[in-house]
């Protein structure tokens, strides 16, 4: 890759990253940090290439550790982020993840939630 092109990519990606999360609510700070933590797990791709190019035992050992760590970053980051985000539900979806409530109340809960959803949107 041409050096100046790489710098353009760097600059545009930096602006993109800033803009993409510029208006994130506090409610999502923890999952979003975990999610961006997952995204830099792409280092796995580079670690695989580095280990794939390694020749001496020292290079292979370091490369092996690198791939192992990178896989841990990607998979672990995905696992915790997905677990957290899966739990975020609005009132409309309450019956599904609601825990202690019986199925009989589900319909009432949903209607109730729909109304509140609208209200919550209004206040933002």
């Amino acid at each position: 890759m041409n050096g100046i092109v790489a710098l353009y990519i760097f600059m545009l990606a930096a602006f993109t990253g800033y803009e993409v999360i510029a208006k994130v609510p506090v409610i999502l700070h923890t999952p979003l940090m975990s999610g961006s933590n997952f995204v830099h797990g792409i280092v796995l791709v580079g670690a695989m290439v580095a280990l794939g190019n390694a020749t001496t035992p020292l290079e292979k050992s370091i490369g092996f550790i690198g791939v192992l760590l990178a896989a841990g970053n990607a998979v672990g980051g995905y696992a915790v982020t997905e677990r957290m985000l899966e739990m975020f539900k609005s009132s409309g979806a309450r019956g599904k993840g609601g825990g202690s409530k019986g199925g009989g109340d589900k319909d009432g809960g949903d209607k109730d939630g729909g109304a509140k959803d609208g209200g919550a949107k209004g206040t933002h």
Partner: protein
Amino acid sequence: MDGYFSAAALIQASYLLTAFLFIMGLKRMSSPVTARSGILWAGAGMLLATLATFFYPGISNFPLIIIAVLIGSVIAWVSGRRVAMTDIPQMIALYNGMGGGAAAAIAAVELYRGEQHSTAGTTLAVVGGIIGAVSFSGSLIAFAKLQGLIRKSLRFGGQQLLNLLVLAAALLLGGLVASGVMATPAAVTGLFAAALLLGLSMTLPIGGADMPVVISLYNALTGLAVAFEGFVLDNAAMIIAGTVVGSAGTLLTQLMARAMNRSLGNVLFSGFGDTGTAAAGTAIAGSMKPIEAADVGVMMAFAQKVIIVPGYGMAVAQAQHKVWELCQLLIDRGVSVRFAIHPVAGRMPGHMNVLLAEAGVPYDLIADLDEINAEFETADVALIIGANDVVNPAARNDKSSPIYGMPILNADKAKNVIVIKRGQGAGFSGIENALFYLDNTRMLYGDGQAAVSALIAAVKSV
């Protein structure tokens, strides 16, 4: 040769698609409505890039690669699925440290191989390697602190000077390696040793309460290290994903520091952030007035509006499920119930939202400080469970208090304030809470979970 070129083109195309999926995924993750699909998009991108890389031209050692991927994945998957939601912050630190370590490992392999990059390439490998190694050892310390493995914050005179010296050593060795003056394996080893030491000595003095900001910073640094190693390997997916995380992470670090009412420089260099160091403030007149669960039950059942203020203590007592059960009873009686979350509730900004979501609380019932503060005046009951400093009115009106100036939830403005508390002592921070002594405040003593169970029984019997 034809196969070679088509493989390269296929890989480039899949990396492009991966970059698109990552950016869209992050975009979707920044709204609660679409967040779940966001991580799925990003996950698909990661899977695609990883599979495509197996066809990377000229690489070998496939058995080693597959074994390493399997070991790393299985360990991380099992730990990530099992970890309790209260321990999420340290797991993020751990996985982030692994990413930083991987970036440093790439740099190490490339530097030990030597003489295969331009000066610019070697320089970027060195800088990315240093940043990655700092992020690796620093994140491990952050993990150990949050996990309770390291309880003390190591501080001594001249600490900042030592950090500067170690940084200078790393940069000097890095300069020698990158310029080719002394590109020996020994210099490369020394370079990484200095960088790892820097991560340790930078992070050890920082107190546990400030760790979320530090983890967020290391998250951004790992992103940057990944981007730099992407330049070295000529890998656009790494450059884009790493840079996006680097800048998004920097912004997130600033937002978190602001939410915790600290500046980043203050967190990194002041050696503050340990709770329990300063317990001062004006002595409070009056007494705490106890109340029975049955009375609270009646009060809440006939209220029009109830606001719950949860703190980390609620999660430690594992009371969030019971709290939500109580709220559902109240909602069914027609009571308007909302949760008020202070930015620093939980172990990191947004952590309490995760804990409530785990219990099944819909996110639209959860309000943050700016949104809810005006509503306390019209609330019949404010129920405080496991929160302390974030509802202490001393932050508003007692200039001698250590927390003076911190934004708080105005729970004291509610008509009735009920505080669920284990005993009469001061809280975690050691600061006396003026709220507990107010005329409209009643104390419901007991373990969080037991107290809320008693409230559920009381509401049911109304």
